[in-house]
């Protein structure tokens, strides 16, 4: 049950009769009696209104809702209200979305005549990744006077999966262009780019003389004339069908917020860019999100399906406040592939203490695979190391310098153990990882 402000206003209107009636009747009716009569009248009207109001329990709810939406993009959600009762419902409806689902407007006024169906639409603009839910819809049904209302909450759960935004896809066209350069599709072929033998063909002007294959040239006879030496060059292309295993750390260090973005979100962005690029280059990508258990896994998918599967798997994963169990990671990678692979570890390398477990398993991983450790660096640390105006600033700069040294020490240790390191601010890291991948590809080191 609920009452409306209209009831309060009506009650306030009673001030007039309380003053006027005793004067008009010449004191025949006392002000107190008038007041009591007015309150009784208002109460009677409210009770009448409540009795006539349509039952909100008779409403059946259906939802029309996209099952996924990219973070930052709006989605339209529709509620269909069917009035199965025998009286009209003048309703105020609220859909119980979580605040981060960004439902606008949050409440709707509408009239559903008896036995009919009406729709209300709202725009969801989620501002947090993951599963955004609504558990219930509340219907408040006013009587014809709008004084009092019956209210019921109808359990009608719904969820929309908010996918990572993949904002780093703006870097994709330029990296794809570089990939095509590697792939021999441009007219200029430069030796040294790519490492897999592609084909032999006749020399054309402009080819690198170093790519001339003399043995093939010696065997070659012009089929048309049988005479006349033609020079033959080798062409190369980057290796294909390499395996890439991305391991994203969802432990407590990934919960750190850097530059208004969680570490794990940056890891997702970087993984998506790498996956988009590598799948175009013909490599196979497997992704595992892991802390002490596998939180999500995308395996054995190729082509256009891959990115969709990845964002869907990543969407509901939030970092947990537990220490990542690195000792199980080599076995995890082995379970994904037996072949030599590029293993990309998305974690943080802030301090030697925190990275001890990671450093412990690196030799084991590096023996079989090429290991790349990706970590987000905090731009404010670098800024702080330059701000040395006063005493506070100098101590802060020292602490920042110390933090950078720690990162450098861990990086050096990783390199000594056979791994490689890519670091960058949240904006820089995805393209930096893509560039490192292209460099490895060009050098034929996958």
């Amino acid at each position, binding site marked *: 049950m609920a009452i409306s402000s209209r009831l309060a206003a009506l009650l306030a209107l009673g*001030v007039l009769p309380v003053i006027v009636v*005793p004067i008009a009747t010449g004191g025949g009716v006392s*002000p107190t009696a008038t007041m009591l009569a007015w309150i009784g009248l208002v109460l009677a009207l409210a009770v009448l209104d409540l009795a006539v109001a349509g039952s909100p329990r008779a409403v059946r709810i259906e939802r029309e809702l996209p099952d996924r939406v990219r973070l930052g993009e709006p989605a339209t959600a529709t509620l269909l209200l069917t009035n199965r009762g025998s009286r009209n419902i003048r309703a105020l409806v609220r859909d119980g979305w979580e605040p981060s689902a960004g439902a606008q407007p949050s409440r709707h006024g509408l009239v559903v005549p008896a036995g009919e169906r009406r729709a209300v639409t709202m725009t969801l603009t989620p501002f947090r990744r993951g599963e955004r839910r609504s558990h219930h819809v509340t219907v408040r049904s006013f009587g014809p006077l709008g004084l009092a209302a019956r209210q019921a*909450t109808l*359990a009608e759960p719904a969820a929309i999966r908010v996918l990572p935004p993949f904002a780093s896809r703006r870097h994709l066209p330029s990296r794809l262009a570089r990939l095509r350069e590697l792939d021999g599709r441009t007219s200029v072929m430069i030796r040294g780019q790519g490492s897999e033998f592609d084909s032999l063909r006749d020399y054309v002007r402009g080819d690198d003389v170093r790519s001339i294959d003399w043995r093939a040239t010696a065997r070659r006879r012009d089929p048309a004339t049988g005479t006349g030496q033609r020079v033959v060059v080798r062409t190369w292309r980057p290796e294909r069908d390499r395996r890439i295993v991305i391991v994203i750390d969802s432990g407590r260090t990934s919960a750190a917020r850097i530059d208004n973005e969680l570490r794990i979100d940056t890891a997702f962005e970087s993984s998506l860019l790498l996956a988009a690029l590598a799948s175009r280059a013909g490599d196979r990508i497997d992704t595992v999100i892991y802390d002490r258990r596998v939180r999500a896994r995308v395996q054995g998918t190729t082509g256009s399906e891959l990115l969709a599967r990845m964002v869907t798997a990543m969407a509901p994963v939030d970092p947990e406040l537990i220490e990542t169990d690195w000792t199980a990671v080599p076995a995890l990678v082995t379970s994904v592939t037996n072949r030599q692979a590029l293993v990309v570890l998305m974690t943080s390398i802030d301090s030697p203490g925190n990275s001890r477990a990671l450093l412990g398993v690196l030799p084991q991983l590096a023996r079989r695979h090429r290991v790349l450790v990706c970590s987000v660096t905090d731009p404010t640390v670098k800024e702080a190391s330059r701000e*040395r105006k006063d005493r506070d600033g100098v101590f802060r700069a020292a602490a920042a310098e110390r933090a950078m040294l720690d990162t450098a020490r861990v990086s050096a240790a990783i390199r000594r153990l056979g791994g490689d390191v890519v670091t960058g601010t949240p904006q820089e890291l995805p393209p930096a990882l893509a560039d490192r991948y292209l460099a490895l590809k060009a050098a034929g080191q996958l």
Partner: protein
Amino acid sequence: MTASPSVATPTVRATARRWLYWVIFAVAAITLALVAFIGAGAGRPLGVPLDPQGPGPAGAKALVEVLRDRGVTVTLTESMADTREAAKSDAATLVLHDRAGILDADAAASAARIAEHLVVIDPTYDVLSGLAPEVAHAGAVEGVLDADCSLAPVQRAERVVGDGQGYRHIGDSQDVTTCLDSGDSVASLIQVREGGRTVSVVGTTAALSNERIAQHGNAAFALGLLGEHPHLVWYVPGLGDLPGDAPDIAELTPPWVTPVTVLLLLVVVAAGVAQGRRLGPLVVERLPVTVRATETMEGRARLYQRSSARLRALDALRVGTVQRLAGMVKLPASAPVEQVADLVAALVGQAPQSVKALLVGTIPHSDRELIELSDRLLELDRAVADATRP
């Protein structure tokens, strides 16, 4: 209307059924508690002091009832007119107990003319000055007092609880009896006779109360004092005795003010309820854990600062600078500092000794030196960066 199973809000009937047990329980508990309290007599109020109808410890009902048992007609009055009416028939004792301080001196003087014997209990200053101007207040009295005068009630009582007020006779009138002296000529009972009328000023309030009337000779004292005549009028001045005819605030305001105020209060309550009713239950936002990444750095900075770890802080700055410089002059990160210092000094044209002192040697003894050194490190960093920029 059949409620579908998906409705989360319970029906009125379901709510009532769920609360029924508790309502019954609460009612039963309250009833039980009330019965127990009343039965035990606990929590009974002390009552108004010396209220002739008060059964509480502070009341004086016991005294009044005993007087009635002994054949004294006791009339309780609350206004001067009633008192006059009640006392005019025959010889009467008038008890005046002005606990609210209502009577002024003139009114008290007129009360003295009503009855032959006027007993004033714990009088105010006004009453005392109207009735017996020769008697003055002398402060509080405690303890049990012995009979020390010829008055019959006091003689019979022998010992009386004196807790209450004491009075002093300050005039030189002869027809005055002072009794129950508690030292320093402070008396708890002073009887003044004047033209055939007697005024007794009584301060022993405790001796008359229900709680203590049975102690010592209190009962004999009280009954003897008040039961002298067959008629007793117990006069407690009420609001009707207040002087003055000025209209009070209730008479000045228009009659609708109170109802309108009540109505507006109800409006406020109704508006609050209307606005305060939630449209459905609260929705919980499941927040993920997030940690500010710079927390460690800030914490370490505060630690340095609190312990004034100047050398440690400077060392961190130095190591960072040396590594950057080594990178800029194309030396490996593992190159010795001396080598870096020499190369850098040559590059920027400074004395190798001073550069070496800056990068390794100098120990800061104050914050000022620390800031200065850190500034110089930054300058060196910039100078080398400028010099090596192609």
